[in-house]
């Protein structure tokens, strides 16, 4: 099964991602706008510079002697020029240049207005009827840096924003979902058989109807199980009482009858009544095993229940029944106590019935919830072992029995999520038969 996605994780990541994308789009838009505005401002400064320098340059050229030599304007102080300029005549002869001017960055022939080269932005203007041209160059690098700086300033907060947004969303979602989490906790910590309504206050409007529906369902399930339970109990009572009366009367009859055929016949009736009573009991146990009420609302101590069952059966089995329990520890599981008793009783009865009659039947319960019932006797072939837990199957034993015992135990084990396994010969013995049932222990958190 695919692991369920966490709503909290999904909301936090999704909201943060969306916020980041929006921020990026806003940053790019703002960056483009800023770049346009910057270009306008720089261009205007470039144009202004050319217009300012040109009259001065013309005056200078006219006033100087007719020397052909191009003149480098000496710098007043040594400095790195940011803007460089070049004054040429219409043939491209250089009349004047700024001291850092690099000829390579200018157009081969003067161009009026704005133009671009690979690395510079140029502005050209002319004077004296287009006989003197000036071009001012500004490195593009500078503009890029400015645009980059602006973009960086806009992007920088995003670095802080992502973790802040993640954290904020996480807390906000967690805060909003706290009643849902409480609901989850209430469901997680209750026992598997606990069908009481789940009470959690202040659920969000989206979840509240769901919780109400769950409670409604639990209530219906509880009343259905209750009805089933009382039906089983009542029918057991209704069947057993007349059986008990008839059996008791027949026993009296047998005792009072004179020795002879009448007494023999009373004995036969008594034996069939006992058989009927046994079958009745097994069928009621099977009905219980196949019913829904196999889990208890609260954890039950299997060790205590085992000792009750063993004590009860020990009255007739006597010394043959050996019980070993894990010290004074409780072994808690959510199985219905009656279902557990039926399971254990059937397995012990099988052991007593089919095991070697002079050997003990050992019942052990470990603190990890492993119940094991083993008896001595001839080992069973693997094919018989495989068929055994089917209904009305008796193995090859001659012993008297309904053939339902193991089927009942298997059904109960399946119903409570326990795993039942058969082994022959019994582990650690040369022969015999063993049934092991591993129960699911209740976690300490679900203790009442």
């Amino acid at each position, binding site marked *: 099964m695919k692991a369920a996605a966490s709503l909290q994780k999904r909301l936090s990541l999704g909201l943060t991602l969306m916020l980041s994308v929006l921020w990026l789009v806003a940053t790019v838009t703002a960056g483009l706008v800023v770049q346009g505005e910057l270009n306008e401002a720089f261009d205007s400064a470039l144009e202004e510079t050319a217009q300012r320098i040109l009259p001065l340059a013309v005056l200078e050229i006219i006033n100087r002697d007719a020397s052909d030599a191009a003149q480098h304007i000496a710098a007043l102080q040594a400095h790195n020029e940011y803007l460089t300029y070049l004054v040429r005549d219409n043939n491209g002869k250089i009349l004047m240049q700024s001291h850092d001017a690099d000829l390579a960055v200018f157009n081969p022939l003067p161009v009026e207005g704005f133009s671009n080269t690979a690395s510079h932005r140029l502005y050209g203007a002319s004077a004296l009827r287009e006989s003197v041209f000036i071009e001012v160059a500004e490195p593009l690098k500078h503009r890029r840096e400015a645009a980059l700086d602006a973009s960086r300033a806009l992007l920088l907060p995003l670095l802080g924003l992502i973790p802040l947004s993640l954290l904020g969303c996480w807390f906000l979602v967690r805060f909003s979902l706290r009643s849902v989490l409480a609901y989850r906790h209430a469901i997680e910590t209750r026992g598997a058989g606990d069908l009481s309504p789940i009470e959690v206050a202040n659920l969000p409007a989206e979840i509240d109807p769901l919780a109400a529906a769950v409670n409604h369902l639990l209530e219906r399930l509880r009343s259905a199980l209750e009805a089933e339970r009382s039906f089983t*109990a009542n029918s*057991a*009572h209704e*069947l*057993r*009482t*007349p*059986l*008990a*009366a*008839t*059996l*008791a*009367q027949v*026993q*009296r009859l047998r*005792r009072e009858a004179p020795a002879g055929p009448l007494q023999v016949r009373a004995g036969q009736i008594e034996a069939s*009544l*006992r058989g009927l*009573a046994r079958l009745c*009991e097994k069928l009621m146990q099977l009905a219980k095993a196949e019913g829904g009420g196999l889990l208890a609302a609260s954890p039950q101590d299997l060790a205590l*229940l085992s000792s*009750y*069952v063993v004590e*009860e059966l020990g009255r007739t089995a006597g010394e043959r029944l050996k019980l070993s329990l894990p010290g004074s520890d409780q072994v808690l599981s959510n199985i219905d*106590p*009656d279902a*557990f*008793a039926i399971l254990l009783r059937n397995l012990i009865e099988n052991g007593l019935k089919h095991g070697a009659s002079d050997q003990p039947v050992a019942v052990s319960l470990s603190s990890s919830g492993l119940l094991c019932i083993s008896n001595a006797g001839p080992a069973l072939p693997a094919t018989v072992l495989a068929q055994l837990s089917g209904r009305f199957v008796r193995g090859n034993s001659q012993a008297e029995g309904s053939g339902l015992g193991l089927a009942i135990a298997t059904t109960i084990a399946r119903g409570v999520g326990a795993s039942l396994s058969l082994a022959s010969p019994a582990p650690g013995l040369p022969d015999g038969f063993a049934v092991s049932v591993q129960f699911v222990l209740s976690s300490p958190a679900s203790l009442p």
Partner: protein
Amino acid sequence: MRVLLIEDTAGLGQAVREQISDDGHAVDWVQRLDHAEASVRSTGYDLILLDLQLPDGQGLDFLRQRRAAEDVTPVIILTARDQISDRIAGLNAGADDYLVKPFDLFELSARVAAVARRYSGNPNPQLQLGALHIDLSARTVQRAGLTVDLTAREWALFEAFIQHPNALLSKAQLEDRLYEFGAEIESNAIEVYISRLRKKLGRELIETVRGMGYRLGPV
């Protein structure tokens, strides 16, 4: 023993009463809890056999009331409810034993005898009393190695003395143990049984305390 049987199913109640009477006990049989309450108020019982589902209430409630009133009379529950949870509830309410219907009448007899022994303070069914060897569970007495035959009534009377070894038992108390309500009792019935017991088990077995009653003689 004087036994109160509370059971509403006629066929079963009748058979149980006959069985327990055959064992030599006096049985009063009632079919309702209010009659049972009237009976326990008027008579001291040695044992109560209690059905759980009765027409006018739950046997467990009756049992809890008796225990709350510090009545320690032994109680054996006879019920059609076989579940372990019912059994635990019954024992927790103060029952001494629990027998699920349909049960074997001889199993019931054995349980009745076992509870009686437990309350006599000596759970061991084997007793030695002077030359007498007594097996309470098998209901046999041997005198100097020879088995003595006792009738059910004689045994019940003998058991009353064994269970109260130092007590003085009045004629009325002994009649109570031997006969249920409404039974016709010959005025000298107890004297007759005492003399039969003395004949079978030895003169010194039972002492007569003139005008008061009887008690087990010094061994």
